[in-house]
């Protein structure tokens, strides 16, 4: 069994959680953006995560490795969500309409904060798994050493 695969799996998990964290940060940073870079209103983003590589290999790979190979998770897409924007009365704003209302992206700060903390905890769990793999591998290296 290849212990390097364990590190690779945990790394994919950390990668996914970091992407979720980045997306949440981008959403929170744009809470008060009235205009995006392309002139349109900012759309809140969400990350779509899928399991990486259908792992239950058949045939040849199964014979070579004796079992399916696990590959962790991967980010399938970062998609804009279709949350309705909301309006705020702010007549002094240059982007205000004729009635004095400004259109803001429909970002729910509570949802974003919940996403933030679940991503953080999941990231930490991946780190724990990686450290466990490390201690197992190091312990195995001691085999046959001073008894």
């Amino acid at each position, binding site marked *: 069994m290849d212990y390097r695969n*364990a590190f690779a*799996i945990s790394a994919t*998990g950390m990668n996914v*959680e970091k992407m979720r964290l980045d997306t949440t940060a981008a959403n929170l940073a744009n809470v008060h953006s009235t205009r995006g870079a392309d002139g349109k209103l900012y759309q809140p983003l969400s990350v779509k995560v899928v399991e990486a590589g259908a792992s239950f290999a058949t045939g040849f790979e199964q014979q070579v490795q004796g079992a399916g190979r696990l590959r962790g998770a991967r980010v399938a897409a970062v998609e804009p969500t279709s949350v309705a924007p909301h309006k705020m009365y702010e007549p002094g704003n240059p982007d205000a309409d004729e009635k004095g209302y400004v259109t803001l992206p429909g970002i729910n700060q509570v949802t974003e904060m919940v996403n933030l903390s679940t991503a953080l905890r999941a990231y930490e769990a991946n780190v724990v798994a990686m450290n*466990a793999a490390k201690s*197992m591998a190091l312990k195995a290296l001691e085999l046959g050493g001073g008894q």
Partner: protein
Amino acid sequence: MSISTDSITVSMARLALDAASMRHQAIANNIANANTAGYAPVRVDFESQMDAVRAALQQGGTVTPSMLQGVAPVLRRDVPPAAAGQGAALDMEIASLAQNTVQYQALLKALSKHMSILSAAVAEGKR
């Protein structure tokens, strides 16, 4: 997987270490997919294949290499996906991770004790 030249202890320890290593990867995969919608957790099936060995030991018999023929850890999917709706339960996975790590280290300890017995025999009991 040549079992004939190894002692039965080493063969069993090797199989169990393989199983623990594979189980670690399964748990790591479950943790990596903690936030994947519709993910079915992966499990490792090994202990249930050792029924013949366990039965022999309980009746005071010995374990023979033929009992270990065809025994190998296998990956399995939980179907249907966890009832909670999404992914695997992070806390349960961390708990089994800790247990699996301790078991792996215990197996290594057992293997290294077995080897130290062998080396005592080789040294004719001298230190």
